[in-house]
């Protein structure tokens, strides 16, 4: 079983528009509501790999119940702490003509101290039945910036493999507790440890610094089709030459899911684990809407992944 933590999930409302015109009337052709949030996306991709997964975090109100129902219908186990407030929604405007996705993201409901205590209790119990846990995404108001560090320590206490995928201070504070794998989320700031990732050398330096700070494996995405993977033993580039990509949303989460799946399967060598994870990301990128739903889809992508030692 692989657990995923989504502290700030959302109900993603996707509005399909022919061509977005600002300060103008826009007609919506299609509307779709789906459970969102980085950890939830990771759970969907893990399920796509036909592995058992459990989604944890905070949800609330009618939107929260919609998320829970959707996940259970997909075969994902849930154990969310239900809060007093309402789960946020994210509006995604899909401009078909320009093939662009514009995301309008809410901050999320306030989490109380009592909510945090109840969540810690759930998390600690669930770790007893898991091989790995992924900790992904932004923090809602009220959650301390060092929460990922606390959760990493609790998981390690129970012998669970930890994967951290977050941004800014929550990432850096989480890294202090030495997760197994750490991947900075660079979507908003493109910065880590106060430095910008502009060139390939910056990404390589960042990956090395993450390893030096205690993660066994560092993953830094550079441009959309390339990842840099570092360990104390070396550094690798993983990329794809496949050109028919239709959707980059959620590919980073599928990559994390791939690592969680691959590193909990005993027969996978390190390079094969990287290849499998990149294939998960590619399988996700080939889908316009939902996450991939079979392991075969991932396996078909394996030949398009190239890994090179630095």
């Amino acid at each position, binding site marked *: 079983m692989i657990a995923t933590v989504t502290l700030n999930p959302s109900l993603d409302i996707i509005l399909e528009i022919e061509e977005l015109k600002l300060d103008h009337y826009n007609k919506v052709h299609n509307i779709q509501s789906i459970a969102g949030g980085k950890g939830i996306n990771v759970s969907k991709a893990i399920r796509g790999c036909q592995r058992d997964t459990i989604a944890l975090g905070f949800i609330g109100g009618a939107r929260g119940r919609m998320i829970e129902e959707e996940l259970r219908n997909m075969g994902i186990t*849930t154990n969310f702490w239900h809060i007093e407030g309402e789960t946020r929604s994210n509006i995604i405007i899909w401009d078909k003509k320009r093939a662009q996705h514009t995301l309008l993201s809410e901050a999320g409901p306030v989490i109380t101290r009592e909510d945090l205590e109840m969540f810690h209790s759930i998390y600690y119990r669930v770790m*007893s039945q898991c091989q790995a846990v992924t900790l992904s995404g932004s923090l809602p108001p009220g959650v301390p910036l060092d929460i990922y560090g606390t959760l990493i320590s609790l998981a390690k206490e129970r012998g669970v493999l930890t994967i951290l995928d977050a941004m800014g201070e929550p990432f850096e504070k989480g890294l202090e507790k030495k997760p197994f794998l750490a991947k900075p989320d660079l979507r908003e700031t493109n910065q880590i440890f106060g430095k910008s990732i502009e060139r390939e050398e910056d990404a390589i330096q960042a990956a090395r610094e993450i390893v030096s700070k205690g993660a066994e494996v560092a993953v830094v995405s550079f441009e959309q089709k390339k990842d840099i993977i570092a360990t104390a033993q070396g550094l690798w580039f993983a990329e794809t030459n496949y050109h028919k990509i239709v959707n980059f949303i959620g590919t980073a989460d599928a990559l994390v899911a791939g690592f969680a799946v691959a590193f909990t399967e005993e027969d996978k060598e390190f390079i094969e684990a990287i290849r499998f994870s990149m294939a998960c990301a590619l399988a996700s990128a080939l889908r316009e809407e939902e996450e991939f739903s079979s392991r075969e889809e991932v396996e078909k992508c394996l030949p398009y992944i190239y890994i090179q030692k630095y």
Partner: protein
Amino acid sequence: MKIKDLMLRDITSVMPDCKLVDLIKILSRHKITGVPVVNKNQEMVGFISQHDLIKAILPNYLEIIDSCSIFSEFIQLSKKLKECAQHKVEEFMNKKVITIDDEDNEVRAAELLIRNKIQRLPVVKQNKLVGIVTLTDICRILLETEDSSS
């Protein structure tokens, strides 16, 4: 059909030291009538339902629920609940643990639900809680099977 293919993949549960006030919050927010009680390793140690609570706090309430004195008894129930708000679940839970393995089938689940007069049957895998099955779930599956065969 295997239980793992029809169960509700929900492992909402409480620890024996959970306070009654928190339990009621969980039941109300999840819109459910009872939850498994587990230890820190997710192993079942009991089950607590609204029914168990009322039976423990005001035993005659369930008997007089249809009578005309229900309102005065309701006030008493409310008062008693407030008094017990900080008490722990372990004082009220049913310690007779009835579970089904996720590899078992719907016939066995239906038998356990009916024989023990319970509404929610916890599902375990290697002794750890992995889901819940109800009679409604079993009826739904039976109907779907019948539909597809006809």
